[in-house]
């Protein structure tokens, strides 16, 4: 039955009679791909625009409304060898794009102003020690003011706005001393220029803005890049549901489903939305929801959760409203509770700002009072006090942490860890306890062949090639063993029994024991499913079960070696948890836990003063992830769970967990190192400023010197620990 695919959800009218669609494309590898894809798209009738974004691996197509259906674009892509996944650009992503352009504009203005003001300032500095005339110096100062004032008013807005928000909320952040320093430096310079003074501080103010904007722009660019990759991965995971329209089936994206729709779920597919079974019967695997590995039998009237895997029969499902089922409601209630009860660790930068700002402002005030008491003129006392504020302006301090974050998140990205939140690095470094979920986290998300070593390799290869023709979950698991990606020719599937094909003139059958003409065999172990392959006179029983991630043993041992306390908290039965805990050497494990029990355990650990890193993938882990100090989840996790995690890791291996901790710890050391560097700089510069000996030249040198030093130190985070080429 050919099914039409309805993607109209993704096509957005542009207002001029055209529709636009954004597609994440798999397989774009080189410059040639750009030309091939754009060329193929432009051959379609009615296409007005086709543009590949190579940085994001995305394609945007616009075409005249009504000429062809959006599904045509995916077919065209497929015909030239690429797989496309349409997606709706997230609002947050668009807003970040606008913010990035704004930062770049500010950076450009600050850069222009910094170059030109420095040009004039260097002339004044060298003129002051030779033979500049006061008139020329005034002219240069006024020219600097003309450039610096409008430029600072424009480029400083990101800082001024943030500082104003903080002040209105009666708190302090790093932007308060920055804004104050910039405004005072410019204001004092104008007054000094009007008084024909020798020194003005336009260059300090503008350079400060330029350095800070550079750091912010880089930070923002890195976060946008990881956000784009995460968006593409979400599009790749997005599956289509089969919705009944009358008696016809139409493929629609899951996001287009609404309550009351009837959908068909075939064997081997995931349930697209929460709902109630109307017809059909099957066994479903709910390990992504509850962690339970034993399958549940369902019939008409049963409640299903989105993300469950349908095993044997075809089901008709009536979609219920999002939420509304007991489990989902409980998860949501727990999530709210966990989010509100959580005292998010205060970020290092904010902690530093809270100490730093009052100290700086007090020092400046004391300088003013001290000089007045010592008999200096009001003018001199004010100039010196402002010089203290300028020299302590936390250029290095404000760069110290973002610079490390940028470099560390780049290193994490290369290790396959995508951050959801920027301050996750600091919290990851603090973790001293790691809690793992079992199903899908310590074990692979999909079942695998577990007795491959006991089967004749030739027989296993033939079986796995035959398995490629079937969508049955056990066959899909077996097909992962196939070395070649071409299925056997002429395979015929007998629904509910197995597949058969002729291989080299001999019949091969893969399926249940009866289908292969053999007596029913008992499964080798509980939790293990078996599938039988016979070829000529030979046969093999292939056991398929949850399997540990390939490097789980080493990673768990290495984590223990780092001095971390390790736990397993699973929703699965105890007898399924015991073998895993033993194989990996976990001393602390608990099974048969409800989401609330997991939170209770985490709260108990927190009460003992432990900082908990939770690693989990199931829907039942989502509240625990939110309650933990910091959280990680594998890319195969349920959507709600992934949204809660601080970071997501890619691939079949568990190694990213230990790399994330190693990189985060290293980054944390560099952050505190940077804060110390900034403190040492202040310890030297502040006494000079208090003594009234700071000229603009010294201020400029000190500021650039400390910024460069801090940035170079941050670059050391690029080398991930324990990485070998």
């Amino acid at each position: 039955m050919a099914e039409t695919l309805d993607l109209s959800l993704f096509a957005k009218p542009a207002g001029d009679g055209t529709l636009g669609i954004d597609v994440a494309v798999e397989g774009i590898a080189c410059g040639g791909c750009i030309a091939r894809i754009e060329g193929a798209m432009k051959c379609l009738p009615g296409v007005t625009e086709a543009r590949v974004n190579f940085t994001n691996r995305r394609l945007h197509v616009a075409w005249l409304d009504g000429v062809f259906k959006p599904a045509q674009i995916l077919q065209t892509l497929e015909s030239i060898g690429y797989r496309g996944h349409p997606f709706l650009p997230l609002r947050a992503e668009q807003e970040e794009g606008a913010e990035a352009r704004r930062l770049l504009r500010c950076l450009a203005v600050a850069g222009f102003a910094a170059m030109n003001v420095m040009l004039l300032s260097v002339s004044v500095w060298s003129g002051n020690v030779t033979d500049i005339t006061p008139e020329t110096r005034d002219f240069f100062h006024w020219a600097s003011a003309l450039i610096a004032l409008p430029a600072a008013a424009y480029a400083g807005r990101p800082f001024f706005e943030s500082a104003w928000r903080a002040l209105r909320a009666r708190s302090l952040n790093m932007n308060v001393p920055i804004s104050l320093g910039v405004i005072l430096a410019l204001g004092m310079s104008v007054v000094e220029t009007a008084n024909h003074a020798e020194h003005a501080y336009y260059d300090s103010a503008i350079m400060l803005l330029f350095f800070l904007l550079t750091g912010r722009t880089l930070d923002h660019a890195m976060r946008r890049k990881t956000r784009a990759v995460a968006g593409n991965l979400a599009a790749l995971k997005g599956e289509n549901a089969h919705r009944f329209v009358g008696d016809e089936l139409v493929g629609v994206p899951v996001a287009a489903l609404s309550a009351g729709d009837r959908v068909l779920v075939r064997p081997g597919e995931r349930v697209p939305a929460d709902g109630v079974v109307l017809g059909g019967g099957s066994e479903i695997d709910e390990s992504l929801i509850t962690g339970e590995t034993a399958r549940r039998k369902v019939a008409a009237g049963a409640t299903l959760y989105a993300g469950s895997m349908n095993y044997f029969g075809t089901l008709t499902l009536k979609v219920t409203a999002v939420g509304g089922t007991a489990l989902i409601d409980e998860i949501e209630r727990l999530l709210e509770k966990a989010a509100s009860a959580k005292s998010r660790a205060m970020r290092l930068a904010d902690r530093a700002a809270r100490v730093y700002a009052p100290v700086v402002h007090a020092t400046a005030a004391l300088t003013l009072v001290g000089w007045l008491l010592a008999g200096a003129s009001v003018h001199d006392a004010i100039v010196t006090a402002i010089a203290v504020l300028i020299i302590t302006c936390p250029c290095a301090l404000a760069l110290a942490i973002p610079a490390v974050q940028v470099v560390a998140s780049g290193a994490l990205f290369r290790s396959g860890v995508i951050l959801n939140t920027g301050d996750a690095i600091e919290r990851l470094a603090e973790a001293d306890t790691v809690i793992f979920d079992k199903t899908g986290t310590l074990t692979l998300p999909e079942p695998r062949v577990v007795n491959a070593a006991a089967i004749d390799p030739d027989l296993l290869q033939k079986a796995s090639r035959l398995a490629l023709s079937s969508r049955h979950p056990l066959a899909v698991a077996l097909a992962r063993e196939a070395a070649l990606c071409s299925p056997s020719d002429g395979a015929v599937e007998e629904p509910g029994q197995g597949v058969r094909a002729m291989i080299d003139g001999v019949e091969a059958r893969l399926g249940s024991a009866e289908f292969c003409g053999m007596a029913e065999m008992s499964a080798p172990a509980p939790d293990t499913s078996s599938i039988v392959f016979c070829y000529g006179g030979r046969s093999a029983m292939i056991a398929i079960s949850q399997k540990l991630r390939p490097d789980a043993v080493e990673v768990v041992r290495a984590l223990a070696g780092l001095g971390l306390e390790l736990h397993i908290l699973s929703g699965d039965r105890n007898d399924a948890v015991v073998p895993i805990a033993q194989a990996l050497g976990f001393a602390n494990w608990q099974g048969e836990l409800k989401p609330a029990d997991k939170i209770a355990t985490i709260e108990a650990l927190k009460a003992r003063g432990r900082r908990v890193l939770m690693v989990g993938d199931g829907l039942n882990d989502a509240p625990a992830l939110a309650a933990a100090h910091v959280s990680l989840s594998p890319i195969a996790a349920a959507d709600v769970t992934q949204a809660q995690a601080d970071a997501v890791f890619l691939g079949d291996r568990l190694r990213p967990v230990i790399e994330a901790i190693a990189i985060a710890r290293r980054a944390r050391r560099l952050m505190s190192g940077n804060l110390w560097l900034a403190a040492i700089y202040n310890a030297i510069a502040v006494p000079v400023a208090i003594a009234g000996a700071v000229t603009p030249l010294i201020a400029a040198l000190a500021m650039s010197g400390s910024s460069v030093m801090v940035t170079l130190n941050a670059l050391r985070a690029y080398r991930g620990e324990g990485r070998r080429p």
Partner: protein
Amino acid sequence: MNVLVYMVPIALGLGLIGLFAFLWALRSGQYSDVEGAALRMLSDDDIEH
């Protein structure tokens, strides 16, 4: 030193031209796909064979 009276504005004017060129490039989306731009430069489909 009267030369400075027009040299400095000229220098500023040149700088401003560069700034506006950058802002124009940013607005017309030339910074939205920097990796792609590096590769597109190498393809020569726009040349008629």
